[in-house]
């Protein structure tokens, strides 16, 4: 019984550790991703990262002139025949020009994280 409990706790801790590690990898990637578009404006917090194999996220926070915190999260859903952009629950199909810019950003992101975090494992 005790052994079973102990195994359960160890198992949970192990799962938690794995989940934490995975989340930390994404957090670190998001920091690198924030620089893909050039310098982050002063007072802004930006993250750009790959959420899953079909989703890219661009998150930006800043204070407007009245000191109000503004938050904008843009999610790109990559589908075989189109790329959809979601902002505040509103979906729209992205233009070819925007899709090209997303692709450029995503490729830069992959290059950077591959070099700086994953020791070339991806390529």
């Amino acid at each position, binding site marked *: 019984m005790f052994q079973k409990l102990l195994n359960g706790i160890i198992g949970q801790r192990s799962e938690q550790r794995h989940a934490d590690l995975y989340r930390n*990898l994404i957090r670190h990637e998001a920091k690198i991703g924030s620089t893909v578009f050039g310098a982050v404006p002063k007072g802004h917090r930006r993250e750009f990262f790959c959420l*899953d194999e079909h989703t890219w996220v661009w998150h930006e926070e800043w204070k407007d002139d009245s000191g109000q915190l503004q938050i904008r999260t843009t999610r790109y859903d990559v589908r075989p*025949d189109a790329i959809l952009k979601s902002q505040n629950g509103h979906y729209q199909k992205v233009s070819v020009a925007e*899709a090209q810019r997303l692709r450029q950003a995503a490729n830069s992101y*992959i290059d950077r994280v591959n070099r700086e975090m994953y020791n070339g494992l991806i390529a």
Partner: protein
Amino acid sequence: MVHKVDNSEQLGQYPHEVILRTTLLRDAINSLNNSAVFSTAVTRHSAASNPFPLRPYFVNGQSPGINQSAETSLYVDSNRADFAKVQSSVPVEVRMPVPENKEVVDHTANQIGGAIGSQLDVRDIQSSLDQIYAEAGQ
């Protein structure tokens, strides 16, 4: 293009999460790069399957008279960089899609020639192709 890592000794050095994550990233970038958004007409296929009207184009301005089948036709594919690797011994007719939609034309041009302005003429695409083939030693 990102390629799969198949060196098991190398993979064994990394935590499972890193392998999971890098695999996911590889799939994600391939999925994005392969999205049909970036394609106009793809590789070798019959003229009948091309949604756009086709306009014959001959490599380096060579005249017609090349006897070739639809299978040897090369279509401009904005998503593939290897369309210039066709064997020089294979007679090739390059056909350009000439869509009505200007946005698609702009997109095609940008994919082929880089920073081509929005005031695009199909002849610009052809000269870009000429250049690509010349550089590829065709």
